């Protein structure tokens, strides 16, 4: 099977890999939307969506009602509804940009996936080989660079809608995203400083960070969330702001901006925004998991290679790969759950509070954090 795979044309290989990742991301994003509804319902003491069930499935004895209760089929019915709804195009909009915006929203989400590793296996030599589409040296930078393009969809959508609320939403989104990008980048720097401490081969690859967290020994196996809690916190908060999640959803703030940048959107174009938001969440959670939660290592101080040895999976790369993907996905999903948990707990900030938090709290914190860790690294250095 591996042989068959290797014999394929490289371009075809890449295409298939990309397709596979998109096929995973899309359903996860969709499922997250359902999960959001369920989580919000449960937190609010409601059952949440639990009605839809196809007739042919209603006959399945136990699983049918259970899935119905979980609202799984609402996912399908929502998707079908979004696809077949009338895709109204308001008359006053700037048509090319109006249509372009939701497509632009999808691009960064899917592009960043290429540099995000999502699993690993052991090769014949016992080395851990990460599973990713493009193992470039500049991994995290690529994520930030492409991720920063996400702001365009919001600005363009807000501007092209040619109406007040979307415009305000777009303006807010651009200011907010630019503000929080700084803290986010600065919060990650200590991690890479640590990973690329003098004497080691320098790399900004995310796989390298995971590799670092799966070393044997106490310090080697420590996840960065324990090592650098402040970094993790700043990164997480910035991540919420960057993905426009509550309490930072200034761009679509329904209380004062109706729907913000997507007020004028409906049907499929709206659902693209929706899926893009969840895709951003998935990618963001994945990056957070890789940086601070040990990637595909099941537990702190328990690297994947140990598990492979215990389960005798070292020579079954496919199984091990699947296991690592499962572990990684599990962490990502937990992180997404935290996203939702936070959303349904914390009320939305006021816009000036958002700006104040970004520039006056998080940025100094991130800078101080960077300096502290730089000093620590410098202090540790001579001993090595």
């Amino acid at each position: 099977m591996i042989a068959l795979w290797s014999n394929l044309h490289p371009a075809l290989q890449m295409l298939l890999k990309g397709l596979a990742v998109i096929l995973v991301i899309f359903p996860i994003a969709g499922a997250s939307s359902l999960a959001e509804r369920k989580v919000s319902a449960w937190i609010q003491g409601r059952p949440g969506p639990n009605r839809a069930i196809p007739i042919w499935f209603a006959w399945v004895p136990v699983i049918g009602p259970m899935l119905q209760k979980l609202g799984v089929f609402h996912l399908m019915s929502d998707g079908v509804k979004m696809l077949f709804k009338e895709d109204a195009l308001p008359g006053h909009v700037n048509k090319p940009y109006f249509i372009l915006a939701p497509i632009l929203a999808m691009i960064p989400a899917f592009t960043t996936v290429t540099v995000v590793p999502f699993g690993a296996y052991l090769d014949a030599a016992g080395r851990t080989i990460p599973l990713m589409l493009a193992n470039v040296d500049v991994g995290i930078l690529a994520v930030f660079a492409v991720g920063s393009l996400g702001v365009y969809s919001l600005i363009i959508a807000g501007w092209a809608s040619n109406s007040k609320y979307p415009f305000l939403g777009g303006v807010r989104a651009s200011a907010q995203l630019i503000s929080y990008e700084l803290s986010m980048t600065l919060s990650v720097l200590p991690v890479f400083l640590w990973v690329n401490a003098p004497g080691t081969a320098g790399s900004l690859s995310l796989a390298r960070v995971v590799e670092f967290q799966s070393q044997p020994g106490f310090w080697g196996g420590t996840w960065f969330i324990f090592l650098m809690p402040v970094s993790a916190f700043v990164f997480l908060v910035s991540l919420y702001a960057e993905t426009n999640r509550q309490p930072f959803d200034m761009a679509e703030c329904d209380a004062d901006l109706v729907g913000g940048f997507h007020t004028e959107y409906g049907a499929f174009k709206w659902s693209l925004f929706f899926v893009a938001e969840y895709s951003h969440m998935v990618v963001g959670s994945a990056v957070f998991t890789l940086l601070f939660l040990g990637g595909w290592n099941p537990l702190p101080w328990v690297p994947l290679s140990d598990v492979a040895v215990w389960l005798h999976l070292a020579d079954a790369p496919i199984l091990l790969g699947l296991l690592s993907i499962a572990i990684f996905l599990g962490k990502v999903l937990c992180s997404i759950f935290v996203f939702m948990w936070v959303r349904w707990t914390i009320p939305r900030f006021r816009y000036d509070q958002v700006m104040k938090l970004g520039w006056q709290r998080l940025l100094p914190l991130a800078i101080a954090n960077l300096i502290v860790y730089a000093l620590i690294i410098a202090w540790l250095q001579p001993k090595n």
Partner: protein
Amino acid sequence: MATVTVSRKPLSLSERAYLPQILAGMRITLKHLFSPNVTLSYPEQRPAIPPGYRGVPTLVMDPHGREKCVSCQLCEFVCPPKAIRITPGAVPADQPDRAHVEKAPAAFDIDMLRCIYCGLCQEVCPEEAIFLQNQFSMSGYSRDEMVNHKDRLYELGGTLPDQHFKWDKKKAAEEHGNQH
């Protein structure tokens, strides 16, 4: 108007730091995540209607199954959105147990698209013939369907077990009273 200045308690350090508060909030929401639902699965489960609930206005019959409404039209008069429309009529003389009432509605329509469930009709009714009962959901596919006619109103209202029998007392007085 006098202005009342409310003195605010200064925030404690943990409150100003905000993070502990967020964590406390998240603890609460997490608790709720695992606590049982407080909602009803509506069409299957029905809420217990408290006494005095103002649902759909209905016409009721007395314990002998006779209509109580005498079409005095006070409800029609008092109805703020003019949802009630009554066509008065006379009770035919060949109905021995009701002829003494003399008057009864020939038609009684309540437009539920207009009704605001204020309950003034119930309050004003001198015969205790109209009641806002437990029924709370009315739906239909057309405007016509949303107009409750007399037979539908009696179907919704049913019979109430009150023991006033105002008109029966009158009949008894007619039969056994100070006949001259």
